[in-house]
């Protein structure tokens, strides 16, 4: 089981120290991998770690360790080469392997390797690799089953490529007498099986009640359809008086409206899963990372049965992991520091999800040191993102916004966990992809709360239609705070932007004609005595900020389906998408956050031009 090298205590000690470290890192990485199954960096790192353990344990003759790490390495290799895709069982197998290796190392430390019953675990790993394999080419299957040798396969593939007409590998093999038709047929069946199990990953579980509701509503729809058909028949037969037709049509259309709304809602509900599926990986993550950082942390999870659309689950996994790690790494202080500041030694991290109106709100908060705006500001100046004078004019919220810029990180040295500066911008962009938003609230010495907002459903958006110049635009209703009639004389110029005084607040004023480079219908110039001063504005909320959008007319509200506008529209971040109006026309949906950003840029440009 071991060789004489393993009798050298210093060699063994080195091996143990190195391997423990690798396993620790692997544990964190594996958990992170679950949230980001295709992260090449993680996969490579885990693979290399396992490879090293295999190598050094082989050198010292620790056979069980070699055996297990070898098999695990195979699975990891398949994953990182893209030949396999992760699923839950695969992850469980990997974690189990890692844990078993940990046990083995401890045993070596305490006296020596024991006898281990590894077969079930080895089988599980093998199964995981086999099951997760993306559909392998036929040739590989035949080689794996020892039907043909790799050399023969190579020659066949070469021949196949050189052949002017397309030839099938299976046929070639049989024709050359290298395999029987049964063997080839078998391999083809296997290939199909693998492909199908990969496709099955696109399925999801749905609560039977939700499906029942859906079927009920469809039943109602059928009934209403029958009524309409009857109505149409009676009408064409001249059986209906005009007044009757009017009233029946009205009733039918009202009923149809109701049923369609319910159907839409029920349909979308079937795609919703409880957020618990993402939250459940955090207890282990927090425990392990805290242990690594030698901090004492308690994780509180609330609202885990809040439901959200399945497609969102994938996209917010990464951001959440990153934010929790930030709290652990930067937010929470060491137990000693905490005691000194009169805080309990144990820090608390809270993960809360709740539904607020038509939004899902997820809060990640810690009772740590908070974020120091001064440090952020200094870092921003250092990176040339802002001048010292301008910094003085910014509010705390605006300073905190710098955190979301790519490459921004105030960590003194990038730890392995975070501080690489690539996280927060990804958090924000992922949220943006989901039509959501993120903002930070922090109190120095007391803690930080990061709030993620997500729309309840992706597809339907209640909007407010407004007319600006000759175009009609849609504004997401949830961003609309109020509409107001304002006196243009309350518009002032501040540097190159315009602001509006409304009651006691000063809001940035946005004019679409400026952003969209179209002709303004009526100029908004303060002090221009010839124009009627009274205009309509829509006050929009962007995170914690508010902005005023100048419009010409308010048309009304509508609830429609939002469609994405393709990739050909990179030039316009102010647009969130488009909807098709009741009259069949395309209406552009404006994105309040994008509008605000664009207007800032416009005023920056204006300022630079006059500087």
């Amino acid at each position, binding site marked *: 089981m071991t060789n004489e090298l393993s009798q050298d205590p210093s060699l063994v000690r080195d091996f143990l120290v190195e391997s423990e470290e690798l396993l620790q890192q692997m544990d964190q990485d594996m958990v992170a991998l679950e949230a980001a199954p295709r992260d090449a960096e993680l996969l490579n790192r885990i693979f290399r770690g396992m490879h090293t353990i295999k190598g050094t344990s082989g050198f010292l003759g620790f056979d069980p360790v070699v055996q297990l790490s070898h098999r695990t390495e195979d699975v990891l290799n398949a994953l990182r080469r893209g030949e396999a895709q992760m699923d839950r069982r695969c992850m469980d197998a990997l974690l189990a392997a890692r844990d078993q290796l940990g046990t083995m190392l401890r045993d070596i430390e305490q006296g020596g390797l024991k006898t281990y019953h590894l077969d079930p675990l080895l089988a599980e790993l093998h199964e995981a690799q086999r099951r997760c394999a993306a559909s392998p080419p036929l040739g590989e299957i035949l080689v794996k089953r020892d039907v043909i040798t790799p050399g023969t396969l190579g020659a066949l593939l070469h021949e196949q490529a050189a052949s002017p007409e397309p030839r099938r590998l299976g046929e070639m093999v049989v024709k050359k007498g290298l395999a029987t038709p049964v063997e080839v047929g078998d391999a083809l069946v296997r290939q199909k099986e693998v492909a199908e199990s990969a496709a099955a990953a696109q399925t999801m579980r749905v609560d039977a009640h939700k499906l029942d509701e859906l079927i009920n509503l469809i039943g109602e729809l059928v009934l209403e359809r029958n009524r309409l058909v009857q109505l149409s028949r009676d009408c064409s037969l001249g059986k209906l008086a005009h007044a009757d037709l009017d009233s029946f049509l009205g009733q039918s259309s009202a009923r149809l409206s109701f049923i369609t709304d319910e159907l839409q809602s029920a349909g979308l509900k079937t795609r919703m899963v409880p957020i618990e599926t993402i939250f459940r990986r955090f207890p282990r993550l927090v425990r392990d990372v805290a242990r690594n950082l030698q901090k004492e942390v308690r994780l509180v999870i609330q609202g885990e049965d809040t439901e959200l659309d399945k497609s969102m689950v994938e996209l917010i996994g990464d951001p959440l992991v990153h934010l929790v790690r930030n709290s652990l790494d930067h937010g929470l202080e060491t137990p000693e520091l905490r005691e000194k500041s009169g805080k309990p030694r144990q820090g608390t991290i809270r993960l809360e999800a709740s539904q607020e109106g038509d939004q899902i709100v997820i809060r990640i908060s810690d009772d740590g040191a908070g974020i120091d705006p001064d440090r952020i500001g200094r870092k921003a100046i250092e990176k040339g993102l802002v001048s010292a004078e301008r910094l003085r004019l910014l509010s705390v919220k605006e300073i905190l916004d710098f955190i979301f810029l790519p490459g921004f990180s105030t960590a003194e040295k990038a730890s392995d966990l975070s501080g690489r500066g690539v996280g927060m911008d990804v958090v924000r962009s992922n949220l943006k992809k989901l039509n959501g938003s993120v903002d930070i609230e922090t109190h120095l010495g007391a803690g930080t709360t990061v709030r993620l907002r997500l729309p309840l459903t992706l597809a339907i958006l209640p909007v407010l239609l407004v007319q600006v110049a000759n*175009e009609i635009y849609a504004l997401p209703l949830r961003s609309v705070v109020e509409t107001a009639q304002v006196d243009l004389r309350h518009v002032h110029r501040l540097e190159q932007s315009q602001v509006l005084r409304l009651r006691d607040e000063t809001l940035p004023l946005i004019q*679409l004609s400026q*952003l*969209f*480079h*179209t002709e303004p219908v009526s100029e908004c110039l303060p002090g221009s005595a010839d124009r009627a001063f009274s205009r309509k504005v829509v006050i929009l909320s962007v995170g914690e900020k508010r902005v005023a959008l100048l419009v010409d007319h308010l048309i009304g509200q509508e609830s429609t389906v939002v*469609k994405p*506008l*393709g990739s*050909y*529209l*990179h*030039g*316009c971040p*102010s*647009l969130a998408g*488009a909807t*098709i109006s009741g009259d*069949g*026309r*395309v*209406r*552009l949906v404006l994105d309040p956050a994008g509008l605000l950003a664009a207007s800032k840029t416009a005023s920056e440009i204006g300022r630079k031009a006059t500087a």
Partner: protein
Amino acid sequence: MSVSSQPENRKASKPLHSTSPGELQLVSFHLGSEEFCLDILRVQEIIRLPQLTRVPNSPYAMDGVMNLRGKIIPVIALRKAFALDRLAHDKQSRIVVIETNGSQFGFIVDSVSEVLRIPADTVAPPPQIGRRRQDYVSGIGKFENRLLILLDIERLLTTDGMLGGAAPPA
């Protein structure tokens, strides 16, 4: 090279999408004084101009987007793409809808002429003239003394500046 002439009634007897090998089936349309053609298999449909919605800060050649049975597709003015003078749309203007790579696009043309079949060997490679347009011309065909400019529509869509970028210099 021979140019075959195919009278109307003979065309009608063949099923719509079958072509003999060596034959190209094309849809031809006009832009200004020139006649262009597209491979018919690329063309999804041809429709009249509906109301277009302008998209701010969009590429120069893009006139806007439209609702095609519930899908929102971009509409490109070929006249602009080819740096021709702008022309007001009239009753003859049409949108040619093509599908490529899973997305649909519409092109505004002055008028659509007909569907025709020409032998593949009547198509000559485009002449080497130093004009931008030559990037997306896949050949020049001759038919009944008409010169048909065969467009490579995918090249057109992926050309720099077509679906991204500012207006070409006047």
